[in-house]
């Protein structure tokens, strides 16, 4: 397995109204080439800050510790100039709102070719040809005409495709997508999901997909890391994780979602409200809401432990969790 990206001990803290807040509290994960790692969580879980830290885009008053090893360097210790080299050239990004990436007044051609030319040192004509072929790859019809147009002439779904084309322009090894389809209609989302899947296969890229939507995760991700209150609570291959969750938060989250078989029955919310960074419960952050909580849960922060040869879970007490292969005590 090549580990393209290796994150260890990532902690992000910021000043808060009642004292410093910990947004991300010691997160470890790896991403290998060719795989899609899904980072799942609700708002306030720290999932977006995590990837922003990798890109050097966190707010200026945030303090980051830990390492993120990518291509032999630690992304978290690069200076601005070095980061600019990495962003766009080796790591491509797709954010939720295409209009935060696309300049409304600049032609598509210029937006696509601008950083291609800077990072890859291409001439104008070569860059243009590449831009057209990128637009074709993301299935923009009439790529030759599209390239002269401006973002406002496209629909939301098309703009997101253009953003994906921009992210791919310099052939990055890693693509980070933060809620790439959340703002899109469901039929348009389906098209983008298929596109992302296709691109990933064709190019053998690694992808970090950040979203709260477990349906999107299920379609695209190979492995899933579930975030709650700034920590990873469960991690493993997506199918067994969604079908047989080992951590109470994951289990409760899946139970709260609508299921076709349960038509007409009440949905099952999780008691309490989600932990926020400025008011995190002691010990396991989920314990106040957990039906399996024991006394030890409010004292000690459980660490992420293997519960099978492919699954990690940060819950030592869940009775439903299998403790199979490794003989780990529950």
């Amino acid at each position, binding site marked *: 397995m090549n580990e393209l990206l290796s994150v260890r001990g990532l902690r992000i803290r910021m*000043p808060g109204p009642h004292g410093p807040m910990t947004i991300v509290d010691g997160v470890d994960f790896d991403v290998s080439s060719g795989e899609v790692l899904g980072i799942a969580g609700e708002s306030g879980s720290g999932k977006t800050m995590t990837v922003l830290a990798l890109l050097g885009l966190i707010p200026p008053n945030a303090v980051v*510790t830990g390492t993120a090893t990518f291509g032999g360097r630690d992304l978290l210790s690069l200076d601005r100039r070095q980061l600019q080299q990495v962003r766009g050239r080796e790591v491509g990004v797709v954010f939720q709102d295409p209009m935060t990436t696309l300049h409304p007044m600049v032609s598509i051609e210029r937006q696509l070719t601008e950083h291609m030319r800077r990072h890859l040192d291409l001439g104008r004509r070569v860059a243009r040809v590449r831009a057209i072929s990128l637009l074709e790859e993301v299935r923009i019809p009439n790529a030759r005409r599209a390239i002269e147009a401006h973002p406002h002439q496209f629909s939301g779904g098309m703009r997101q495709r253009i953003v994906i084309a921009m992210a791919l322009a310099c052939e990055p090894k890693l693509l980070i997508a933060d809620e790439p389809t959340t703002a899109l209609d469901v039929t348009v989302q389906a098209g983008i999901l298929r596109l992302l899947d296709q691109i990933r296969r064709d190019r053998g890229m690694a992808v970090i997909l950040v979203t709260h939507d477990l349906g999107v995760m299920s379609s695209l991700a190979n492995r899933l890391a579930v975030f709650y209150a700034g920590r990873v609570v469960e991690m493993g291959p997506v199918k067994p994780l969604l079908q047989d969750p080992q951590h109470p938060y994951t289990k409760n989250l899946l139970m709260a979602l609508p299921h076709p078989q349960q038509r007409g029955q009440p949905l099952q919310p999780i008691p309490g409200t989600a932990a926020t960074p400025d008011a995190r419960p002691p010990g396991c952050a989920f314990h106040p809401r957990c039906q399996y909580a024991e006394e030890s849960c409010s004292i000690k922060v459980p660490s992420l432990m293997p519960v099978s040869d492919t699954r990690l879970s940060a819950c030592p007490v869940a009775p439903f969790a299998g403790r199979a292969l490794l003989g780990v005590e529950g």
Partner: protein
Amino acid sequence: MSFMTGGEMESADDRADHVLAKRQSVAFRSVWRRPLAVVGLLIVAGWVLAAVLAPWIAQYGPLQQTADIYAPPSADHWFGTDQLGRDVFSRVIHGSRITLPLAVMLVALASVVGSLLGGIAGYLSGVVDEVIMRFADLVFAFPAIILAMAVAAALGPSLRNAVLAVVVVAWPIYARVMRSLVLSAREMEYVLASRLTGASSREALFSEILPNVAGPITVLAMLELGNATLWLAGLSFLGLGAQPPHPEWGAMVASGALAFNRWWVGLFPGLAILSAVLAFNFIGDSFRDTLDPRITRAIR
């Protein structure tokens, strides 16, 4: 993990802790911890005291003439005397009773008139909005001091007319800000919800919208106090405001300008104006930054 000895790793984390602690102490300071605000408040407090205690602080009456014409600063006359032998220090102290209360009154008047007009324009839209905003634009089209001069001259030079002139010039900024605040508040779902329970437009405007726009308008008024002081002093300087022998600071600077080599006559009143304007600006800025930097910075 990178190759680091225990000692090195500790210092990286310690450094991070230290940086965080520093940022925390800066980020959520209350308004009272901001040095400039404190300075501003002290200055204003000082002038308020001066205004209240003027007869006891000042050695001489503000209109009291002596034979000691154009005397430089001395133990007898801390700020010297002017062309009629009047004690500059006493006049500056008494001047605080004119300029400052008038500036506050002026801002209060302009903000009430402007907010009312702007609020109506924003809520009713249509013709009413157009008419009010065009009047505002008319005022904005002129440089403020020129327009104020014209109005003051037309009304006749007096302190009262100077105040009116500045109100004419100052109200549009409040109208414009209030209008845009009301326009966005009007679409807020809590306003719609109150209409759905049976509130009339007027009720919605007063009970739902107004409490939410009072904050930004107050901050604006504080920021405008500095301008008001300057305009008022400026009109008096030009002879269109306070008439002699009133010890209004602007008028005093004017008489100082006629006698440049007697630097004390104009300098001290000028410094008084400067200190007041700076103080208002410091206070206004700090309140703006504390309340909601994003919204209120957009106002100016």
